[in-house]
């Protein structure tokens, strides 16, 4: 391929960042399939992106994250039927081969080996396909279950619907919260929020009715129009709420709310 037809580096960088629109990305993919130079450059740019990833401040894993992961792996292993690695049997333990096999003609043995190998290849390919389909199904099931929860929360008769407004007189910022205590489902849609510096974030809080400490319910930042949403943050179930609040916290969030509360709303119960 001639120099003139190579993909410009700018576009390869955007491709590595997955920023190109699908049409352009498909054209780049097609070019890369036939151009080793561009493929190499794209791979190096992707390597550069790994360096950018390292620029992210490192945080310890949340408590119990390792155990939760291993539990999921164990469940997945059960669902997909992955079995433990086959045991290695020592030569001494193996049953002796009966002499009669030695008399089978070599040509027949070779034919059987070829047949067995072909079968193994086929089984391997089928296993891979099953695994890929299972992974896809699991992803779709998870997405569907989440969508169902959103729908359930929005339509539940027992849902608490609360309008959160600015604590002070500034007209714009407001938010709507929908909360189902029994399932711990919370959805917040906020509008007209003030922009924040990069080292700050908004944090949503559930204020329990029993007077216990506020429960953090997710970090969020508004988009250019001042809108933001929090969908189904991780919350304990069965916590009756008397109010909801939003505070401004440092970028990684806080375990306790920092005054002032910029948005607040009571459940009215």
């Amino acid at each position: 391929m001639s120099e003139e037809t190579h993909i410009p580096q700018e576009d390869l960088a955007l491709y590595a960042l997955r920023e190109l629109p699908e049409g352009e990305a498909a054209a780049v993919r097609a070019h890369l399939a036939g151009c080793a130079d561009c493929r190499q450059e794209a791979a190096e740019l992707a390597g550069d992106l790994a360096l950018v990833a390292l620029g992210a401040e490192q945080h310890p894993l949340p408590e119990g994250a390792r155990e939760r992961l291993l539990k999921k792996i164990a469940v997945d292993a059960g669902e997909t039927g992955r079995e433990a690695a086959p045991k290695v049997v020592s030569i001494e333990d193996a049953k002796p081969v009966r002499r009669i096999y030695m008399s089978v003609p070599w040509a027949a043995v070779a034919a059987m080996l070829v047949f067995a190998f072909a079968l193994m290849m086929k089984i391997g390919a089928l296993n891979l396909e099953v695994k890929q389909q299972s992974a896809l199904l699991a992803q779709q099931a998870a997405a569907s279950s989440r969508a169902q929860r959103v729908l359930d929360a929005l339509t539940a008769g027992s849902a608490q619907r609360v309008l959160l407004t600015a604590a002070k007189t500034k007209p714009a910022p407001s938010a709507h919260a929908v909360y189902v205590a029994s399932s711990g489902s919370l959805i917040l849609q906020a509008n007209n929020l003030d922009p924040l510096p990069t080292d700050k974030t908004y944090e949503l809080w559930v204020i329990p009715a029993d007077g216990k400490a506020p429960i953090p319910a997710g970090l969020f930042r508004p988009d250019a129009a001042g809108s933001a949403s929090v969908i189904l943050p991780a919350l304990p179930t069965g916590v009756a709420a008397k109010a909801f609040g939003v505070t401004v916290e440092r970028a990684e969030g806080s375990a306790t709310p920092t005054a002032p509360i910029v948005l607040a709303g009571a459940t009215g119960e």
Partner: protein
Amino acid sequence: MLERVKANDQGAMGEFCDRYGRLVYSVALRVLKDPSQAEDLMQEVFLQVWRNPGAFERGRGTLGAWLAVVARNRAVDVLRRRKPNDSVDDVVLTSSTNLASEVERNSMMEKVRQAMGGLPEEQQRSVELAFFEGMTHAEIAARTGDPLGTVKTRIRTALMSLRKAVQA
């Protein structure tokens, strides 16, 4: 370690988490800014590794670098609320950066931070907006008021400078 994962050794995934969990979680948290979502994403990436350990090949740079880019791409998918539009198999990269040990990671992070800090402010900002905020170059251009071509060039130049600085 991947060989043990291929052999269905669940214990190997524990070691995998010990070695790369923090890296993957931190990248996801930087993009998503939500600890719960970041943990979900880390689980998703590691489940993909468990289900398809052959997706990473030695010819594709180092495992840590690969995981960092896979985590970022998945996190941006979540941020843009779109379905994952590629599988982990599609991430191909060349990287001499060895991130297998804590010491190597810390040393490389220090180099990267220094190199990033040395970039012109507008290049640094463009890369951060594209990489961590998941903004398209058109969105960046709209925010900064710069022409599209300028934004593209800034991103490419910043990546090149970063590569040179780390290789030096």
